[in-house]
């Protein structure tokens, strides 16, 4: 009996017990679909994180202050110290010292209430330099950014994020209007284009950007400490060179002895991506594990039904043997049946997975990336499950002696 005949016979058996075949496949269908969707979720989430981080600027180094230790010896978290200053930023901007840095943007950040006419809105007021726009890869929707002269003089100008602008001016163009911040009146000179992403909960679109000297004047602070210094390397290749130059510079400037902890930290996008991805990864592994278990259960379901099928069709097996079927022909027939169930279940599962990866993002607002590797793997696994769990019932069927099979009631 050749392969084509074996397949035809197996297909007929699957078709003639349609309901049972569908129920058998269900376990594998669900298993495969969930594997595809969970892998898709994991990859989608990772892609989203990467996109958000690369939106920060492609060759970006982010320098944050280290932890602070107060007089009583209690230590704050990273970023709590005031060890980074505008002077540090100026030093980094010196092209002789750090030749591979293209642009440097120190930023201060305070949360303050802005008032425009009758309306007020509390947002984060960012004090920075003219490089900020480039370094953070932002563009303007209308108006202009502040100039070097305005930055130097601490001019009373402000650039609003799109969300902030619409909260304060609700629809009308804010350019040329005035907002009052802490008793000072600032002129709105521009509105930022939406950044299109929000990372770690705070919207990049709800912000008021002012020259750093203006920001210091607003808070009445005499300290020149900044919360973050963004540095754009000349190119992605020069990122690590820039990193080392800055590291060396700050070590010297801050008088850090070798062996001591630095009072600042420099992070790159890669390290951010890694941190963000590791949480996703754990979740993905967990979900994939659950999906794999459901696949296993599906496979056992196939075996179960095939065993029932052997018992139920024992007379048919006996007859086929009496008519000249060899043990291997009977074994192959049952193996083919199990494989067809596995494969059909797998294909159906893939179809559901593919449809799910289109439909789900719209419902749950989470991207789902369809992974070719996961899909191909799922297909392989479903076929392997069919074959693997079909072997035992098939051998049982093949071993039946014809007379026992024929005589059974």
């Amino acid at each position, binding site marked *: *009996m*050749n392969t084509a*005949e074996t397949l035809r*016979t197996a297909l*007929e058996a699957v078709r*003639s017990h349609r309901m049972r075949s569908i129920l058998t496949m269900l376990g594998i269908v669900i298993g495969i679909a969930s594997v595809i969707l969970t892998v898709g979720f994991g990859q989608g989430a990772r892609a989203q994180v990467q996109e958000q981080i690369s939106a920060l600027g492609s060759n970006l180094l982010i320098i944050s202050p280290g932890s602070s230790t107060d007089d009583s010896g209690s230590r704050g978290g990273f970023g709590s110290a005031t060890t980074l200053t505008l002077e540090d930023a100026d030093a980094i901007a010196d092209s002789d010292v750090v030749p591979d840095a293209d642009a440097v943007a120190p930023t201060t950040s305070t949360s303050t209430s802005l008032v425009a006419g009758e309306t007020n809105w509390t947002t984060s007021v960012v004090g920075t330099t003219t490089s900020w726009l480039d370094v953070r890869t932002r563009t303007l929707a209308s108006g202009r950014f502040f100039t070097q002269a305005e930055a130097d003089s601490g001019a009373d100008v402000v650039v609003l994020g799109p969300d902030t602008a619409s909260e304060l001016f609700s629809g009308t163009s804010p350019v040329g209007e005035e907002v009052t911040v802490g008793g000072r009146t600032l002129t709105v000179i521009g509105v930022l284009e939406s950044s299109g992403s929000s990372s770690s909960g705070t919207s990049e679109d709800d912000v008021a950007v002012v020259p750093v000297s203006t920001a210091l004047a607003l808070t009445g602070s005499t300290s020149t400490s900044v919360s973050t210094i963004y540095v754009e390397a000349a190119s992605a290749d020069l990122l690590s060179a820039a990193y080392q130059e800055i590291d060396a510079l700050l070590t010297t400037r801050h008088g850090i002895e070798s062996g001591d902890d630095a009072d600042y930290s420099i992070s790159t996008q890669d390290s951010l991506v890694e941190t963000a991805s590791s949480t996703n990864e754990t979740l993905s592994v967990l979900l994939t594990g659950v999906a794999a278990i459901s696949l296993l259960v599906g496979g056992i379901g196939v075996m179960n039904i095939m065993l029932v099928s052997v018992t139920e069709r024992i*007379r*048919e097996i*006996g*007859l*086929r*043997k*009496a*008519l*000249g*079927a*060899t*043990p*291997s*022909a009977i074994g192959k027939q049952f193996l083919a049946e199990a494989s067809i169930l596995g494969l059909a279940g797998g294909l159906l599962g893939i179809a559901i997975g593919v449809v799910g990866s289109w439909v789900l993002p719209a419902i749950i607002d989470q991207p789902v990336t369809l992974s070719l590797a996961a899909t191909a793997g799922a297909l392989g696994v479903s076929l392997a499950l069919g074959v693997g769990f079909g072997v035992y019932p098939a051998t049982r069927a093949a071993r039946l*002696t*014809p*007379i026992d099979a*024929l005589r059974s009631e």
Partner: protein
Amino acid sequence: MSPAAQQRHRSTGGEPIIELSGIRKTYTSGTITFEALRGVDSVVREGEYVAVIGPSGSGKSTLMNILGCLDNPTEGSYVLAGDDVASMTETQLAEVRNKRIGFVFQQFHLLASQSAWRNVELPLVYAGVPKAERKERAIAALTKVGLGERVENKPGELSGGQQQRVAVARALVTEPAMILADEPTGNLDSRSTADVLGLLDDLHRSGRTIVLITHEDEVAARAERNLVIRDGLIVADTPVGVPA
């Protein structure tokens, strides 16, 4: 005269097709052993029409299973068309069942989901006959048993007699050396019984060897030789008049 001596004297028929000597079959269930066959010797020659008769429990079904290579004897030798069956593997036995023996069962044993011709072609599938030839031969066999018009019908759409005729067509489609019929009329009404027996007569006339197992004397009377079996032994081997 012993059965073996009777066979030696027999002049009808050609080459021996079945040679049984000292066939024993013992069933063991727990501590109880039961001897179904206690030393059966017999020879059936090509072209013979033999009926094995005996009451239930006499061992005739066991004999039939051994003749059909569906079961192995505990002891003794069975030579089928010159080949010793005892030394064969399960795969070789499958080939013997496929090529040399055509079965007709009391319960028909047709596949309910398949049409008549699909049922008839089944032995040819296992024989590796090409598809087109299979269908042709299956339909020819069905025509021979008078079901040329019903080839596409499934067993459920046929009467009992018609179903048994499909089974006869299936038995002869491979042109086997012998046809083994196990109570072929046991589940049929008298008219269908006459039909099927008539078919076997035709096959016999065309030169085929037929071994028929029955407990009905009128069925046995259609054969040309009766083997009477009782308590696991052949107690009589008698020629019968050629059926009218």
